[in-house]
């Protein structure tokens, strides 16, 4: 493997322009044609493949959400039938969780950035990396096929006995799709762990790593240790459905709560698979746009690992009212409170990073600020839910729906978009239009809050989730929510349009448009296939920003402008 690539590098004509000294060749123009993309082992190209496929799934999942919000404008069920509504929220959940959120930041930004950030030429296992994308596509097509054939109506959680005795939809086919896609996530995690352990540039010690690497490392641990459990759980559902082996059905000697234990053992940590890489993105961005070193670097790094480990010990908080013992409920409640500590460490440290910084309000920073606020609301309402008494009141209401959308959408998607904006010049070599960027970031923030804040109120007032009809008095809040969703929808479509536009018409970015630290900014944009022409040597801590210097520079340019 190592041999192959050296040979290829030598065969190429010189990639540095002899006249200007600029790098002519990059990973995008190194070679052309479908084969060069579909058989690539370049982590950057694989990241692009993932980017395209998860974007398709994002808009597919979004279109289900549109239908849901349209139905809920009126109290009666009138737009779709009850069964169709069940399928809509199920498929929205499945597509968004398994095919968008879980791969989003690790598979796109992580794949692109992890090797570059640590000064490596590629992942430890480039072919495995490509395999993970193919596995993702196969799983995706399988699930897509099941949806086209007739869909599934169990809810994304596949709770038994809905999924075993009472559903005549395509449970096994959809489950198999998720089973398959899980392996893509395991392979990504495995690749990250080995790459981060083995391929760091000379001098890049663990405490010199960017925090994005730490959080992706923590995420990988969850992927590798958690995902096999959901795979086995889905197999057990298939066994019970297909062969009537009694695992979850009491009539056959099983126990339905067992399903919930197994399911949430993966699916709760899966929430941390979504949020931890998002936190890594935020750490990078907040330092760059405040021009300050991340406050309490080691605490932020270890908080990632802390969240990864404690995240495995809290799954029972999904089962407070479903028949789990009260004693186990108390333990899980306590542990769920504990996980707030590392999360709060991060939020406080990002805020402290901004303190006395030289803050600029570029698009990525707007997303950062949106993230910090929305994640805090999502996290704190999580503490309401971790509290046994409150949970009994709001369990399975819109309060839950609002809470997890604040984490998954307000947290993960805000960070994902912030990260895409921040690294877009590195990925494509071109800038996006800043004005449109700011406008859509603002639109998303407003639209998001208008969509989901009313849902907290609805839930507290007692509107259950997963119902397609509701009492008259809930209509005002539901209409607000649907109106917000349309604003949010526009906010998501705008970046799609201007990112595509920027590929051709965007301003050439140069290697470091943000004047950011980090190895990825020391190579050209877009980077060459080998990432670096010479292996970088790291001699200093990360985030060597100076707010004073930035302020002084700013004052200088202001003065010059006045003089002109």
């Amino acid at each position, binding site marked *: 493997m190592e041999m192959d690539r050296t040979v290829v590098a030598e065969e190429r004509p010189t990639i540095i322009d002899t006249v200007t000294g600029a790098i002519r060749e990059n990973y995008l123009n190194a070679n052309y044609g479908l084969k060069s993309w579909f058989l690539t082992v370049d982590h950057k190209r694989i990241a692009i493949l993932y980017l395209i496929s998860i974007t398709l799934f994002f808009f597919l999942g979004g279109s289900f959400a549109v239908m849901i919000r349209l139905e809920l404008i009126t109290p009666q069920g009138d737009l779709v039938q009850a069964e169709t509504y069940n399928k809509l929220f199920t498929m929205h959940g499945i597509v968004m969780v398994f095919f968008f959120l879980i791969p989003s930041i690790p598979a796109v930004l992580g794949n692109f950035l992890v090797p570059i950030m640590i000064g490596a030429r590629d992942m430890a296992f480039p072919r495995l990396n490509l395999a993970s994308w193919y596995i993702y596509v196969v799983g995706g097509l399988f699930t897509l096929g099941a949806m086209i054939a007739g869909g599934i109506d169990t809810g994304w959680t596949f709770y038994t006995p809905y999924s075993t005795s009472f559903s005549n939809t395509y449970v096994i086919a959809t489950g198999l799709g998720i089973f398959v896609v899980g392996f893509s996530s395991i392979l990504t995690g495995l690749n990250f762990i080995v790459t981060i352990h083995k391929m760091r540039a000379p001098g890049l010690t663990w405490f010199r790593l960017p925090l994005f690497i730490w959080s992706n490392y923590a995420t990988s641990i969850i992927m590798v240790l958690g995902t096999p459990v959901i795979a086995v759980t889905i197999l057990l559902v298939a066994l019970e459905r297909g062969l009537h082996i009694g695992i979850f059905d009491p009539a056959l000697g099983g126990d339905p709560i067992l399903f919930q234990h197994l399911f949430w053992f993966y699916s709760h940590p899966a929430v941390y698979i979504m949020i931890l890489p998002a936190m890594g993105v935020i750490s990078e961005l907040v330092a760059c746009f405040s021009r300050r070193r991340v406050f309490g670097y080691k605490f932020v790094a270890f908080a990632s690992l802390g969240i990864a480990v404690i995240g*495995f010990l809290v799954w029972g908080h999904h089962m407070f009212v479903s028949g789990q*013992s009260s004693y186990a409920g108390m333990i899980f409640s306590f542990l769920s409170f504990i996980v707030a500590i590392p999360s709060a460490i991060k939020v406080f440290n990002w805020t402290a990073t901004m303190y006395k910084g030289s803050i600029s309000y570029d698009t990525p920073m707007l997303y950062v600020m949106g993230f910090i606020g929305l994640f805090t609301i999502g996290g704190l309402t999580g503490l309401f839910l971790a509290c046994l008494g409150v949970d009994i009141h709001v369990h399975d209401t819109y309060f839950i729906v609002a809470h997890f959308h604040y984490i998954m959408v307000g947290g993960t998607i805000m960070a994902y978009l912030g990260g895409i904006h921040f690294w877009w010049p590195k990925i494509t070599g071109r800038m996006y239009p800043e004005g449109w960027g700011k406008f859509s970031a603002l639109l998303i923030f407003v639209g998001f809050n208008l969509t989901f804040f009313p849902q907290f109120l609805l839930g507290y007032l007692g509107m259950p989730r997963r119902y397609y009809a509701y009492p008259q008095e809930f209509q005002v809040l539901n209409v607000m929510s649907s109106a917000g969703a349309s604003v949010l929808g526009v906010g998501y479509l705008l970046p799609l349009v201007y990112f595509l536009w920027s590929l051709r018409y965007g301003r050439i970015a140069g290697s470091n448009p943000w004047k950011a630290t980090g190895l990825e900014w020391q190579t050209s944009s877009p980077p060459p296939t080998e990432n670096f022409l010479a292996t970088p040597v790291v001699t200093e801590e990360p985030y060597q920003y100076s707010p004073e210097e930035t302020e002084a520079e700013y004052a200088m340019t202001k003065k010059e402008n006045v003089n002109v």
Partner: protein
Amino acid sequence: MIEHSEPHIVPKKTYYIVFATLMILLFVTVAMAFVPLGPFNIYVAMAIAITKAVLVVLYFMHVRYSNRLIWVAAGAGFVWLVILLAFTLADYSSRGWIKVPGK
């Protein structure tokens, strides 16, 4: 760059012995199911199952001849399995410990 420890060559005989042991334990499991031991049947069955799993991990999966990093990785998997089982069983064994009014 990547250090490879010398591949340990395991004689075929070891594999045959391990395989035979696994088969014997399989028959023991089935046989024990017919011996009425009351609540101890499950303990005996689990003890045999754990023994078999350890044999597979150590010999067929080569962990016995691997370096410490592999031991840590394999160990982590087991610790996580223990977390899953311990908390799940804690639920089952503690149902009814705390009386909830009206339940």
